[in-house]
């Protein structure tokens, strides 16, 4: 990771001389900027950009759906460029505004908007989930592992599907228990229910559980700690939350997506189109740091092999969203 950062710093230094002055802007997803997850990831990327370049990033947190379109339009009309639109709920609004400002560069995260001046960044969550699934299967002694999702939407089923594939890849006989926390947005922030679901999975014999459930995950990790089992974090590196219990975290680098957009625009390298960030692009991955180094040490070799396989295509990970099925 640090090598990667170093490379970025070096490359940014070398391009500084010919960099353009840009006026970057972000319109966040509904909810708040400091959500410990999606928005905050984007905000961290912007912060990194500001620290390196001293360019201020203009930000707006919409309070309702109609403010999204208004904010994107206002950013564009005040000359902000590029404008990052965060989250799938902004696709409609961006589709309209992007047409009105053909000269402005827009980037949308987590969704595809088909316009000549829009860069759509999506993530191959199934690849990251595959890796942590494989790790879970290797670390499991009972041959049973669990998954706790947040709101039951397609995106989370995509996580679950990748996780299951990874586990089955390592151990064909493994049993994967899956539970979703709920059907409303409240499912993203219900730690007590997350804890109960995790406990019921432990009772059925699972000894590693992966939570793709936002704030609900905190309860899952706590339950894992209380029961002496392993847990896997999601989105950002959550290894530090319960050191010793957290086997790893499946990471989704939305911060990089934001940072790279600004950086590329600055260097004149920004391009429209659809980018899907997977393992190869370092858009998704699994976290190793001082908190879990000892835990994952025996599996490092196998994990590296799997990573290589996914990157070179010898391991195919099925994406749930392509056909709404988890058959592989």
């Amino acid at each position, binding site marked *: 990771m640090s090598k990667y950062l170093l490379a970025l710093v070096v490359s940014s230094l070398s391009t500084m001389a010919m960099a353009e002055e840009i006026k970057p802007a972000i319109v966040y997803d509904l909810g708040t900027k400091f959500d410990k997850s999606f928005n905050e990831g984007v905000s961290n990327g912007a912060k990194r950009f500001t620290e390196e370049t001293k360019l201020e990033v203009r930000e707006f947190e919409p*309070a*309702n*759906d*109609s403010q999204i379109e208004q*904010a994107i339009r206002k950013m564009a009309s005040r000359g902000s460029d590029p404008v990052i639109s965060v989250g799938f709920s902004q696709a409609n609004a961006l589709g309209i505004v992007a047409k009105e400002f053909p000269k402005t560069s827009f980037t949308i995260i987590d969704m595809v908007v088909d316009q000549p001046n829009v860069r759509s960044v999506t993530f191959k969550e199934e690849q990251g989930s595959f890796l942590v699934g494989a790790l879970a299967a290797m670390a499991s002694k009972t041959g049973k592992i669990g998954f706790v999702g947040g*709101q039951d*939407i*397609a995106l989370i089923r995509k996580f679950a599907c990748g996780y299951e594939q990874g586990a089955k890849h390592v151990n064909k006989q493994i049993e994967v228990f899956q539970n979703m926390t709920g*059907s409303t947005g409240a499912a993203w922030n219900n730690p007590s229910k997350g804890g109960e679901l995790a406990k019921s999975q432990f009772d059925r014999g699972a000894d590693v559980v992966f939570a793709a459930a936002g704030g609900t995950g905190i309860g899952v990790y706590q339950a894992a700690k209380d029961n002496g089992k392993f847990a896997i974090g999601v989105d950002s590196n959550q290894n530090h939350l319960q050191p010793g219990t957290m086997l790893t975290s499946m990471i989704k680098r939305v911060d990089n997506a934001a940072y790279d957009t600004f950086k590329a625009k600055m260097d004149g390298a920004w391009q429209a189109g659809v980018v899907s960030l997977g393992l190869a692009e370092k858009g998704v991955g699994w976290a190793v740091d001082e908190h879990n180094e000892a835990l994952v040490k025996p599996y490092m070799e196998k994990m590296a092999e799997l990573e290589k396989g996914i990157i070179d295509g010898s391991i195919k990970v099925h994406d749930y969203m392509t056909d709404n099925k988890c058959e592989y």
Partner: protein
Amino acid sequence: MKVAHVNQLLSIVLLPFLNLLTAFIVTTLLFLMVGIDPWEAAKILVKGAFGYEEGIGYTLYYTTNFIFTGLAVAVAFHAGLFNIGGEGQAYIGGLGVGLVALGLGALLPAWLLLPLAMVAAAVFGAAWAAIPAYLQAYRGSHIVITTIMFNFLAASLMVYLLVNVFAEPGQMVPASRAFADSASLWSWQEFMAYWGIEFAASPLNLSIILALICCVMVWLFLWKTRWGYELRTVGANPDAAIYAGINPKRIIMLAMLLSGALAGLVAVNELLGVQHRLLLGFNTGYGFAGIAVALMGRNHPLGVLLAALLFGALYQGGAELAFEIPSVTRDMVVVIQGLIILFSGALEFMYRAPLQRWLLRFAREA
């Protein structure tokens, strides 16, 4: 000056003005504490809300929603009922609009479809209010509790429908497919263009005319019809109403049905006018803000209209403020709104007694 005059002057002009002023003074202090120039902020807020066509459009678009929910609360209030359920009634009103627009959109022409969708919004909103109304009238369950609970029921129902029934396959967005073109209310821009006048694009649409008509209708109903009289009588004194031969149970039903129907019309503005699809949480906050609007507007349609305009301006100007001054966060704007609600709603009568005394003394001396 007579006592009645003094009271009228007080409650219509002086008190709202003083309450607002207090709220703004506290806001100013708050801004100074955070290190924002309050004069600059005020300028941005006013200019953002009324300074240019797009801003005006947004202000009036929010105003439209607040008129509907404000009237909804006001009508129920005149019958002595506190309808906290505008949020849920608006949401279910959206279900009515969605069903009509998605189901019949391809079959019917606009002139038939749009009125039908509006009626559906009102009927669905009213139906959602009917259950708490029945429970209050015939079972004595308190309307505040039941309407609050019905907000949650509405939210759960809509999430279920949007995620499992209406959502397009392969889409993450919990929203229905787009309505047919015939199910779209003219935006103000299109409306003005019809008369050859240019107006900037904004979510403002013809619903605002519907909202103004509702203001007049509510006024006529409450003060010019027998039903309205009965409704106000029940609100003023249910025992006296029974003595006068009025059936309070029927009136409770009537008031709540009307209230729910008005709240349901929010969906006309949001779905037919702006979003053109059924989506998650389009109603967020408008139902609750309606309570503040009705309180501030003293439950009179004209007052509701003015209070709705104030809140519309605060919503739009506030967004502008958050946009222009980075240190003003979205939460800061909510604090301003909260202060206004606090001083003109909760502390409504803070100045009343001293002012009344002072004014009366002044009147006697004169």
